[in-house]
């Protein structure tokens, strides 16, 4: 898989947070990016879009990130889900990792963190 073939799903209720991550991914060469704004849409979109990598916010309306990561992993146990955590969500973060999320990154996201994750997925290292 090359970087422009990698399918990425971004899920965050803040349009600014989605834009920031999308801009970073585009700068890295990613081309196939789909955005959604709540956990329910993330689960539904995962099933039809079948992404290689998911970035999931924790605190969201309709369905939170913990429930969403659990449902995504029940559907596909090989899903690579990265939790994007805001300050003050440490206790949720532990739950998400326990539920099977692969890793987490802290917001505001930094280019190097995102690059590290994308490169690891590309190399099939996860």
């Amino acid at each position, binding site marked *: 898989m090359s970087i422009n073939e990698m399918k990425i799903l971004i899920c965050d*209720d*803040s*349009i*600014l*947070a989605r*834009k920031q991550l999308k801009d970073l991914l585009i700068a890295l060469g990613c081309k196939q990016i789909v955005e959604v704004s709540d956990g329910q849409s993330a689960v539904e979109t995962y099933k039809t879009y079948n992404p290689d990598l998911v970035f999931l916010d924790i*605190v*969201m*309306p309709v369905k*939170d990130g913990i429930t969403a990561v659990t449902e995504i992993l029940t559907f596909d146990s090989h899903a690579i889900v990265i939790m994007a955590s*805001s*300050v*003050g*969500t*440490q*206790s*949720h973060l532990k739950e998400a990792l326990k539920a099977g999320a692969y890793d987490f990154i*802290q*917001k*505001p996201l*930094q280019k190097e963190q995102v690059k590290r994750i994308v490169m690891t997925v590309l190399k099939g290292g996860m």
Partner: protein
Amino acid sequence: MYSQFFGNYLLNEKLLTSEELLYALQRLKSKQAKLGALAVHFGYMTAEQVEEIYIAQTHEDKMFGDIALERNYLTKEQIQELISFQKPTYLTLGEVLIEEGLLTAEEFESALEKYKSTYSINDIDFKNEYKADHDSLIYQFYDSINPTENIFTMHYISLLITNIIRFIGKDFTPQEPVIYEEFNSETGSRQNIIGARHAFTAVDASREAFIQFARRYSGLEMTELDEYTKASVGDFLNLHNGLFAVNMSNEQSLELTLEAPEFLTNYHYRLHKSIFCIPIQFSFGIINFLFVDYES
């Protein structure tokens, strides 16, 4: 931080009109250098290191200098040197007021002396602006909230003022707090704090002030009430409440979590509890911060 409260004092003493204060606050913004900018200017830190510290401040409630010291980017001596170049805001405010002919040098000096004696602030504190002194000033300013009985609320307000300075700017003055039983919000975002203690938090403003606040926080060009402005104010609330949750966990062993922020217009709040309204006058308008501690 004293300078922001000093602005309110000048208003109450009728030494300035609110238009004059707003004008001075606007001018103030262009005259002040941040510690990070000075550190780059002096060649002590790279722009990347400064950016790294700004990001670290979104993860924990710490001063720029303290993080720079922890990461060995600055020595104690360098911090002191930079602080000495960073003129205290109250002096810059005085300069603007005098330059603009709004106050004479004598009027400014006399008002400053009266203010310091009213709030028992000594000269050293006024220059260095220590955190402990911030808290004592905030407790005095917000005494109508009954600080000793509302410690949780006071922690919230104290951090709010710090976060406004860190993430929005120094050009504001707090107005007297108001306690409401019901509140009509024109344009706003709200977020509930849950977990070991429940609280309601919200931001309310006129449409125009809401957009300007969003613009300040995001640093992006924003002129309309759209998804981006709504997200920006929601993100500020989420960041401030997140830092509050971290502080409460570290200082009070209270584990708090947050619900997703929500945008609302023309909303009538009636929460069966007193709503503390903390109005902050910025150069672009008034932003009301609402707080309800359900367990007070």
